């Protein structure tokens, strides 16, 4: 009856094996952010090294697909998050984020910060900014759209990849951009644009990945994105299309969670965020414009970028009041 050793072995296998690696450092700061920030080519790893050298702590990144998903996750965890800092919301989401009651004022001087429009807030601190733009592949598209109207009404066979406004801040940015330009006609604009949309991705990384791998000749990204290809890949193949109506501005922010396990450490990180140690990594790793002084010269490529004459930016209260209805409108138009 030797077989019956099987039973205890099987029972042993039945015990759920909860495997979780334990971190071993005196102090740990967990920062929630979006995925592209912490990827190996993003600014995350470099910022982590610099900050850990200063604070004698362990900085742990947790990346979710994109900025709006960050807010969803916080709502879901309703105060049980292990994070101290959330980095990667944008000004569009600030009112809604404050309304959750999960954040508290940072209490730090923010004189070092300078962004277009002079945005300043007692809860959220800007760390970079950029203008949304359609990036196109010059090898496929000879005549890029010169206005949002061009994009909306263009050839349905020339596809664009966009992000989902329910999870992604660029996706939400495009929604607000279209709303700024089209107002009450936004739904019909989306209906028309939907014919050109190859796919809607949950986050920026997926969309940009599809674009660079040639699945679509256009993608929603930032005016700064071509700089990446010029600096890192030495090619002018990918360019931003300048739109005559103007471009929507995004200011990305970070904030302190009220339930941060170690608030002092979290504040230390937010203060560090406004110094060159952090800001130097933004232009050539996150490929956005720094929100405070940098100690490096921006690469030459940055001077060749599209710089929008007119910009749009809704107040955060307006977005909070209308986001649900506008997303509903978007879903309705896109599923038609």
């Amino acid at each position: 009856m030797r077989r019956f050793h099987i039973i205890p072995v099987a029972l042993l296998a039945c015990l759920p094996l909860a495997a979780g690696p334990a971190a071993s450092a005196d102090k740990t700061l967990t920062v929630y952010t979006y995925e592209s920030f912490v990827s190996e080519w993003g600014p995350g790893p470099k910022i982590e090294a610099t900050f850990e050298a200063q604070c004698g702590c362990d900085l742990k990144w947790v990346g979710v697909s994109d900025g709006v998903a960050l807010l969803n996750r916080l709502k879901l965890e309703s105060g049980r998050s292990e994070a101290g800092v959330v980095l990667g919301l944008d000004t569009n989401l600030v009112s809604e984020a404050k309304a959750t009651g999960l954040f508290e004022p940072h209490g730090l001087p923010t004189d070092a910060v300078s962004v277009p429009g002079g945005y300043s807030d007692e809860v959220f601190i800007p760390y970079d900014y950029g203008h949304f733009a359609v990036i196109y592949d010059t090898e496929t598209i000879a005549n890029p759209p010169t206005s949002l109207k061009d994009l909306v009404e263009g050839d349905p066979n020339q596809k664009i990849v966009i992000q989902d406004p329910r999870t992604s801040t660029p996706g939400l940015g495009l929604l607000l951009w279209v709303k700024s330009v089209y107002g009450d006609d936004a739904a019909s604009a989306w209906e028309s644009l939907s014919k050109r949309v190859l796919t809607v991705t949950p986050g920026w990384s997926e969309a940009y990945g599809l674009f660079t791998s040639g699945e679509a000749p256009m993608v929603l990204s930032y005016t700064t994105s071509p700089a990446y290809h010029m600096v890192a890949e030495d090619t002018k193949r990918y360019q931003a299309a300048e739109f005559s109506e103007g471009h929507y501005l995004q200011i990305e922010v970070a904030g302190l969670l009220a339930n941060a396990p170690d608030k002092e450490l979290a504040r230390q990180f937010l203060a560090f965020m406004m110094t060159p140690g952090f800001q130097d990594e933004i232009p050539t790793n996150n490929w956005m414009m720094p929100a405070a002084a940098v100690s490096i010269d921006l690469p030459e490529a940055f001077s060749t970028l599209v710089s929008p004459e007119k910009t749009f930016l809704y107040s955060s209260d307006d977005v909070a009041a209308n986001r649900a209805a506008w997303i509903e409108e978007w879903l309705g138009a896109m599923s038609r």
Partner: protein
Amino acid sequence: MLTRSEHRASTAGGVAALAVIGLALAVPVMVLLSQGTGTGVSASQGAYIARITWFTLLQAGLSTLLSVGFAVPLARALARRPSFRGRRWLISLFAVPLGLPPLVAALGLLEVWGRNGVANRGLALFGVETPFSIYGLSGILIAHVFFNLPLAARLILPGLERLPPEYWKTAANLGMGGLSLFRLVEWPAMRRSAGAAGGLVFMLCATSFTLVLVLGGGPAATTLEVAIYQSLRFDFDPGRAVLLSAIQIGLTLAVMLGLRLISLPTEAGDTKGGATSRPDVARGWRSLPDVALIGAAGVFVAAPLVAVVVSGLAADLARLLTDALFWRAAATSLAIGLAAACVAVSLAGLMVRARFSVGERPGSPGLGLLSGLAAAAGSLTLLVPPVVLGAGWFLMLGGGAGQLLAPLSVIVLINALMALPFVMRVIEPAHQGAMERNGRLALSLGITGINRIRQIDVPALLAPLATGFVFAVALSLGDLGAIALFGSDRIVTLPWLLYQKLGSYRTADAAGLALLLGAATMALMIVADRLGNRSGAAPLAGRQLR
């Protein structure tokens, strides 16, 4: 042939197993119902939900039409050519998609049908300017046909092969034309199984989650299951999730009631192939249509598999295998799979035993109900799809934030319930047979109770139990439905890791991972199949597509 106390124990075990299943199903449904639909549904929301529901039905209907529509001529062609070289191999190949995790298949399909895939490069050679797009309805249909055409063909083929050889001789002697042969002989032999296969395929496609999630490409191509997932993970709108779940349950219920009318035929295992010659079938160049059809189907099914292997081997497997996250995900997946298999086999064992016990004591309405419920329990798990189950538990656990054991247990439970109908199907006939063989003997030897289970019943059932166990591990290993809601940086399984790599377009890593995951589940499925064949257990047909 059980003693009185054994009957009591069997009944108690059956009740306990049913209670576990009932709780696992009822708790999330109650949680969903108690959440209510929140603020009510606005007109635009209602229109959106109506469109999703319509799309769910549309894509399932078209997938069924295409799968069965191609499967009928394919099965006919295979029946007409009973002895070509590689036929057995081809029919085995058709079983592969059944065992493949949908995510792995999606990756292979992207390699073949994507913008830069083989198909589009081929079209470009012929001067087709506008590339074919795999995103949206077309991609969903290709993926569903990839999974279900082979399944349907395997279900339809045995009906044709069971026809006596005299039919074909007579048909040849009468000089019957292809059309009348089809109308009078072939179609009547296929009709039942084609209908049943259609019902099954429709059910699988109406509840398809992973493929739509990966290949859907936006609000225009979203199914109810994906919308439930999105309303929790994207909008954090529990009210909408509840509403969508109710619609989904209603839909699956209607389909299942429809399916009751048509019973499922057995699948072609090792078909006879070569046993009957077909004097009615032309040879030479006139066999070309059959050959072309069989060849095209073979290429259609094999190409994504080959793509997974080729791109997987091209990936940096050595780096992947030294990645700590990979091993963590593999360990978590294995632990979840083993635990889910334990739960599934235990529940199935208890219910099979209870049903047997009830069968020996007919007449009691209470016991009859127990037996009926135990039989229905398997189907009940199909009624409430994993994403809906997960949604209920997810809301109850508050998103599972900061917890580890509770979400893991929920994933184990959901995976176990998914495997349950198939495990029961394997164990029940074997148990019946073993009881008929050993029942009296055990009684006469006076071996009863736990001793009997240990010394007689379990050894006799070892092969089918192992089959069910290995199958449940494989099913759980490839599942994304249950982990999709709970996956986080703390709980990472192999499919979840693959989904993330696919998402962030680390294609090389994703390809390597897909190969490893695909190979692991295929190996387990083959083991399960071998064990099943040895023990004469029922073939593992109709695995869930998730």
